[in-house]
């Protein structure tokens, strides 16, 4: 394998890397200039399609294919949404890129808009990234001044406006139709599909939603070519005709119990062990690994025996996980309790369930209540069966929900029960040795004080009963 040269994070660490000056000095916007002169939009789509670039946001859907779903000869407007609502626990790849190299993302967006014919792009940025917001905004302003945005970009026919739309603390806005609903000013309830966004998306118009890292990859593919892109990563598995392979570089974010948490760009397919030991300084305090979340909380966990799993789109699946996810690797050391892990995970998904589909709204909240009870030492062994049943039945994979949030909730439950059931059983036996049924049932809803204060429920006043 030739030595790997990072491109996505190449500018990170340079002084003032977020400014147009530094970006241009490193050859920035040359690709845009060249593509506008030399390539027709359709050629760009074809090239991205041929590169087999897959979405970096979590689902791994082929980007070029997604673009090709747009209706032909649509009179417009077509919209592009750049998904920067990175909220998956353990994931901060996009943040680093946006803070340190916003122009790379903008160039990717402009190129993608050229390819798809989009006349406006919305960057959906989560509120928790104030620095990224500041830098992106600056970068957009710089682009307008330099003629990379606005009317007749670089003298071509292309016109484009980029708007930054800020979220307000809802994980579900990272789901593409939830994101669209949120931009439209509604609660971010994902839409039932079909129609898909490519046909009827933002403001009822054809829309493409791509992760910002995907869009950055677009820029690099157009700059360096398909051969370069496909020389990196894992080629398709010949035994699986439906595997499009996992080509290209990927930014991995490593956190948890490691010595050097952070972002690192590596070829897809890097084994978990290499990532931890060579790029994150190993497990902290000289401890051993107990479990690793391979790609954001929703992908589930790998056990210590599965550290040779390659982090490409299909690797974690083979180890029972949901997939590559976002590339957010969380390492848990041997002292960390899997009860705490599952409790934390169930709390997150119960808190973030948008509440639209019954199985997710009730299932995630129920799972959390069960975990609360187990953690409090009132669990029973049958609870694990119940948890497993919830884990197996909610989500888009069994088909019981509209979007994948419930799958994200289900996978940590399923994989923990599959790989660490002994530990959970031990805990239950230890804390509730007689297996007593809990005499006082749990409150119907956990107290979420933070919710009480913000939703305005107080405003509704006292309520009568019956």
């Amino acid at each position: 394998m030739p030595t790997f040269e990072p491109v996505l994070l190449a500018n990170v660490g340079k002084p003032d890397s977020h400014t147009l000056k530094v970006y241009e000095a490193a050859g920035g916007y040359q690709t845009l200039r060249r593509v506008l002169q030399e390539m027709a939009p359709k050629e760009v789509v074809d090239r991205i399609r041929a590169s087999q670039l897959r979405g970096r946001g979590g689902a791994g859907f082929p980007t070029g294919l997604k673009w090709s779903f747009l209706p032909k000869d649509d009179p417009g407007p077509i919209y592009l949404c750049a998904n920067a609502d990175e909220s998956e626990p353990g994931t901060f790849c996009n943040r680093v890129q946006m803070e340190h190299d916003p122009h790379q993302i903008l160039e990717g967006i402009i190129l993608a808009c050229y390819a798809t014919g989009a006349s406006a792009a919305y960057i959906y940025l989560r509120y928790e990234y104030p620095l990224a917001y500041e830098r992106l905004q600056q970068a957009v302003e710089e682009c307008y001044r330099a003629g990379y945005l606005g009317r007749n970009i670089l003298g071509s026919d292309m016109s484009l406006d980029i708007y930054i739309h800020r979220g307000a603390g809802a994980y579900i806005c990272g789901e593409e139709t939830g994101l669209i609903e949120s931009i439209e000013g509604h609660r971010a309830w994902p839409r039932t599909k079909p129609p898909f966004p490519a046909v009827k998306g933002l403001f009822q118009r054809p829309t493409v939603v791509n992760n910002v890292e995907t869009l950055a990859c677009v820029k690099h593919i157009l700059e360096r070519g398909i051969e370069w892109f496909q020389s990196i990563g894992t080629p398709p598995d010949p035994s699986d005709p439906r595997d499009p392979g996992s080509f290209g570089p990927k930014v991995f974010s490593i956190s948890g119990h490691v010595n050097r948490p952070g972002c690192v760009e590596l070829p897809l397919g890097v084994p978990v062990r290499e990532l931890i030991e060579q790029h994150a300084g190993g497990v902290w305090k000289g401890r051993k690994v107990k479990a690793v979340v391979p790609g954001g909380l929703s992908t589930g966990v790998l056990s210590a025996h599965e550290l040779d799993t390659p982090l490409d789109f299909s690797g974690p699946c083979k180890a029972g996980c949901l997939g590559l996810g976002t590339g957010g690797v969380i390492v848990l050391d041997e002292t960390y309790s899997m009860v705490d892990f599952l409790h934390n995970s169930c709390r997150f998904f119960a808190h973030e369930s948008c509440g639209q589909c019954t199985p997710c709204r009730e299932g995630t909240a129920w799972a959390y209540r069960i975990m609360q009870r187990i953690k409090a030492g009132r669990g029973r062994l049958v609870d694990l069966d119940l948890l497993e049943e919830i884990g197996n039945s909610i989500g888009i994979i069994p088909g019981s929900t509209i979007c994948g949030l419930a799958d994200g909730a289900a996978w940590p439950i399923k994989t923990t029960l599959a790989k660490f059931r002994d530990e959970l059983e031990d805990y239950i036996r230890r804390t509730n040795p007689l297996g007593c049924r809990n005499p006082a049932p749990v409150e119907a809803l956990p107290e979420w004080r933070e919710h009480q204060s913000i939703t305005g429920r107080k405003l509704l006043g006292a309520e009568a009963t019956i």
Partner: protein
Amino acid sequence: MMEKVLTEGICKQIEACYPKYPTREAVILPALHLIQEAIGHVPPKAVEELAHLLGVPPARVQDTLSFYGFFAQDEPVGRTRIWVCRSLSCGARGGEELLEYLCQRLGVQPGQTTPDGRITLEVAECIGACDYAPAILAGRVLWKNMTKEKIDQMLETLP
């Protein structure tokens, strides 16, 4: 005539968002941010006035507002809003203990504001700063690799 919650200045800022979106409904979220920023919360009266300004039913604004965990409604938030992350990466490195410590230090529960109106304590699900776990977002400033000592330090610097 009662005084308006949305001052002319806020309305101007909201109107400046109109060209970004083809519909007025889409302005709801940016407008809510502007209001929250300006007056620290979005009281029902602001909801009414915003709805009136945008020409949408007030219920639509309230519906959107209440979905997101971000907007305070009953009372203004403190001068600084502290978000303590408790998701897995931070939680596994002591985020939950820090939250307890902060509750003790400030004498408030998550979602509450100190009586002097200085600080509002909030819990956050993943703030995307797992590389600096446990992390705390205080206003616009990210506090990294927090410990109890650093919390004390942070509290001193806050206005």
